[in-house]
């Protein structure tokens, strides 16, 4: 069996560094924390500046380590109400941020299946037939129906369209310009350092290793950065967050995250004659599969962000977000609006969609958790950035109070200063409404949508029950999924062919099931590899260990689905020897979808999948996402 889940400690001498606060990851939660905290460090609003405890006479020493090679690499486009951002930065206008725009219009669009290959339930097919019959009266066009209204809980009226990459760069420059905090991209944190039950800092990833993590040319052991407070904002699949979950367990009312989605998006240049106005927002559902939601946000200067969310409850054993994305942008409703557009940037990330139900311990001795990894995402309103920023800002306000009073960063103090603030805020109120809103999707798309509506309209008092959540829903077998379209013999032949050629199964199976081949045009419809290189500019620096590890390769040999390969956003996982997937670090976009798609669990540990997704270097190299 491979190494322990968290990178093993090597018995080497490590340099040590002292700081007051160390942050893991620079996403919207950490940006909110640092922007808010920097006001206190500098002594704004008449309060005395915050002084360092580790370097007397100096201001508070705050370090933030980001895994990606620059700030804003690998995060996504967004439409947000931006309540917390505006609260932290009064007077800020979206026009101050590159690619930012105020929301000017919102549409929710149901996409019918113009191809006939989508897997639709009987109820959905009946609904589609009615829509087609009544199409003219309802204003149907391009095989799509624009809903006449959008439920209030989904509205982003008064909100902003942002490129998260550009917003993070903007926030980072503002922070660095203040001189009050230090941001270090290209520096992954491998684990939290513990002293008993107390987190006392972080250990940075070893550099100059081979793929197995053994010392190689230019070996530089990861430094230990000791700090009184460690702020964990490493996102939905962050390895430090998972390390803390393993060490401290979960609150009794919390469950392991079980609802996920991979969000894949592209940024496109629109043609000069594009009718799309800046600030226009489109939400879609119904195609290419009924369970797949889509979005398009229009930025200034004829740029748009668009993409889809492929949820974990899409019970398909052959799913690649990229292939689905290509079919989605060819839907007549979108194709008409995107005619002449050209791919500019591309990327993917995981979304943790269990929200508050999977909330971990928010604080402990010496640490606090913020953002998506802390269960802040609101799955009913489809909002994560606003909430993540808010949790960071709430922690900053609490930490400033404690620091100023000379109090320690202990669990009980952080509970009072941060957790109670969060509990009494709109983040918690709205999260409670959303908590069970998506349960119905476990019983199908129609019941899922009805469940969301029920929860939204009743303030979370009613929802559609989704059955047991204690164990993940098993993924359907290929033979069952394609029953009536492909015989088991045909599937077996394709499986053997893909294994021998080192190819994923989905391409050939989807086409055999009726999905048309992609007519690559070199502009918007490009091969997956071209999306990686031209869009995501994906690369990985040498000298780091592999971050995708199969703990027990023997389990992979008997795995029938190998969903990790089918779901991989970057074609970084491919069929390998004896059925054990081969990992190519240079193609990984660090979306983390393989982590929650692995269907094999370790013997005696049903909560642990066989695939471990550790922290790693490299990935997307575009800040336009």
């Amino acid at each position, binding site marked *: 069996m491979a190494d322990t889940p968290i990178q093993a400690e090597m018995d080497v001498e490590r340099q040590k560094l002292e700081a007051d606060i160390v942050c893991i990851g620079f996403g919207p939660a950490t940006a909110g924390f640092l922007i808010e905290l920097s006001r206190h460090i500098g002594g704004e609003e008449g309060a005395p500046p915050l002084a360092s405890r580790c370097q007397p006479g100096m201001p508070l020493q705050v370090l933030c380590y980001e895994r990606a090679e620059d700030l804003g*690499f690998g995060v996504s486009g967004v439409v947000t109400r931006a309540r917390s951002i505006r609260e932290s930065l009064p007077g800020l206008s979206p026009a101050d941020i*590159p690619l930012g725009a105020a929301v000017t219009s919102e549409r929710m669009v149901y996409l019918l299946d113009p191809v006939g290959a989508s897997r639709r339930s009987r109820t959905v097919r009946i609904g589609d037939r009615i829509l087609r019959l009544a199409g003219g009266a309802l204003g149907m066009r391009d095989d799509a129906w624009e809903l006449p209204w959008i439920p209030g809980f989904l509205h982003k009226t008064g909100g902003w369209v942002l490129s998260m990459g550009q917003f993070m760069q903007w926030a980072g420059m503002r922070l660095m*310009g203040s*001189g009050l905090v230090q941001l*270090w991209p*290209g520096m992954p944190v491998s684990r939290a350092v513990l002293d008993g039950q107390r987190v006392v800092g972080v250990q940075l990833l070893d550099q100059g290793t081979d793929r197995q993590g053994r010392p190689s040319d*230019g070996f530089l052991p990861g430094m230990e950065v000791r700090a009184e407070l460690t702020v964990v904002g490493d996102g939905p699949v962050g390895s430090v967050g998972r390390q803390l979950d393993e060490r401290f367990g979960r609150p009794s009312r919390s469950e392991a995250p079980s609802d996920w989605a991979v969000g894949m998006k592209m940024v496109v240049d629109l043609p000069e004659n594009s009718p799309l106005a800046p600030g226009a927002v489109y939400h879609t559902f119904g195609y290419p599969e009924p369970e797949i939601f889509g979005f398009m946000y229009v930025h200034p200067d004829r740029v748009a962000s668009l993409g889809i969310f492929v949820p974990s409850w899409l019970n398909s054993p052959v799913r690649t977000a990229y292939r689905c994305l290509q079919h989605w942008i060819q839907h007549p409703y979108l194709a008409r609006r995107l005619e002449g557009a050209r791919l500019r940037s591309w990327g993917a990330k995981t979304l943790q969609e269990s929200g508050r139900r999977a909330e971990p311990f928010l604080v402990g001795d010496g640490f606090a958790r913020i953002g998506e990894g802390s269960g802040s995402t609101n799955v009913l309103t489809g909002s994560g950035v606003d909430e993540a920023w808010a949790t960071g800002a709430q922690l900053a306000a609490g930490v400033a109070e404690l620091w100023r009073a000379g109090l320690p960063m202990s669990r009980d103090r952080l509970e009072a200063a941060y957790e109670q603030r969060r509990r009494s805020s709109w983040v918690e109120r709205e999260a409670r409404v959303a908590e069970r809103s998506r349960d119905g999707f476990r019983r199908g798309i129609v019941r899922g949508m009805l469940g969301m509506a029920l929860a939204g309209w009743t303030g979370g008092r009613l929802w559609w029950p989704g059955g047991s959540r204690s164990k993940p829903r098993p993924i359907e077998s290929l033979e069952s999924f394609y029953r009536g379209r492909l015989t088991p013999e045909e599937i077996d032949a394709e499986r053997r062919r893909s294994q021998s050629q080192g190819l994923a199964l989905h391409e050939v199976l989807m086409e055999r099931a009726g999905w048309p081949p992609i007519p690559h045009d070199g502009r918007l419809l490009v091969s997956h590899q071209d999306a990686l290189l031209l869009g995501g*500019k994906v690369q990985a620096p040498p000298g780091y260990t592999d971050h995708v590890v199969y703990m027990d390769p023997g389990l992979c040999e008997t795995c029938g689905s190998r969903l990790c390969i089918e779901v991989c956003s970057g074609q970084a996982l491919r069929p390998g020897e004896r059925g054990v997937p081969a990992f190519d670090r240079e193609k990984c976009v660090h979306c983390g979808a393989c982590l929650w798609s692995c269907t094999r669990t370790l013997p005696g540990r049903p909560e642990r999948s066989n695939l471990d997704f550790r922290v790693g270097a490299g990935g997307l190299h575009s*800040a336009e996402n």
Partner: protein
Amino acid sequence: MTSTGYNIVVCGGLAPDPLQSLEPAMGPSGPALKNEMMLPVVLDPWASHALYEAAHLAGRIPGSKVWLVSLGHRGKLQQMMMTVAQKVPFELVAIEGAAGGFTDPAETAAALAEAIRSIPGLDPARLLVWGGWESATRGAGVTMALVGERLGIQDQFQGVDEFKVQPDGSFRILERVEGGQHQVSICTGPPVLAGWATGSLPEPRNNPQIGMQNMRSVMPALQKARTAKVGAEGVRFDRITLPQQQRATRVVKDLSPDQIADEIIGWIRQP
């Protein structure tokens, strides 16, 4: 006692991250790159080699010190420093300049030379001025030579791949010439200007301690950066072109390195 160390000043500007797709656009002051402010930046790759070599030399000769003189948009310089400052120890001298577009190399050289002259305590007799022999962006490959002229440095070397200090204190310098050959020169000592090609050192690992140490001078240097009026006033552009990105993707397994090399050579030779 007089130090035997060197004062190594490296000149290096910003370049868009080489993985980005570049597109020409017409800005208010002439040709520029579309959305240049949104593109991630790196230290110009040629100058990066010079900086790594400078730090390596300074590490071996006690009493030596490295400065990095960089002209560019202040925000972008700050962004670049988050990465570069983790690599090797140096002190930053920042000059606020244009955010994009073309600049006249003579004006750039004048600003760089003036900044070098203004470095407190710099010993001209121990001075090594290094930089890239050309720029990965819009330089004409003459900037370093003009900097040397303005500083009165007569010993100038371009396309340098190796710079060795000999036991008698003289320098043995290898410059690139045609056909993969090097010209070997012996120079008695500083001041010397070297425009580096690639050198031989790999990119150093990110070192948080070096980053912390550098940042103590980086932020003050950015805050007090003087503005230099550099641009291309009065220049008329007949034509501009960008390097064209070409891609031909094929997935092939089990080819030997020789076969792959043959394929690449064949592809390069295509008309």
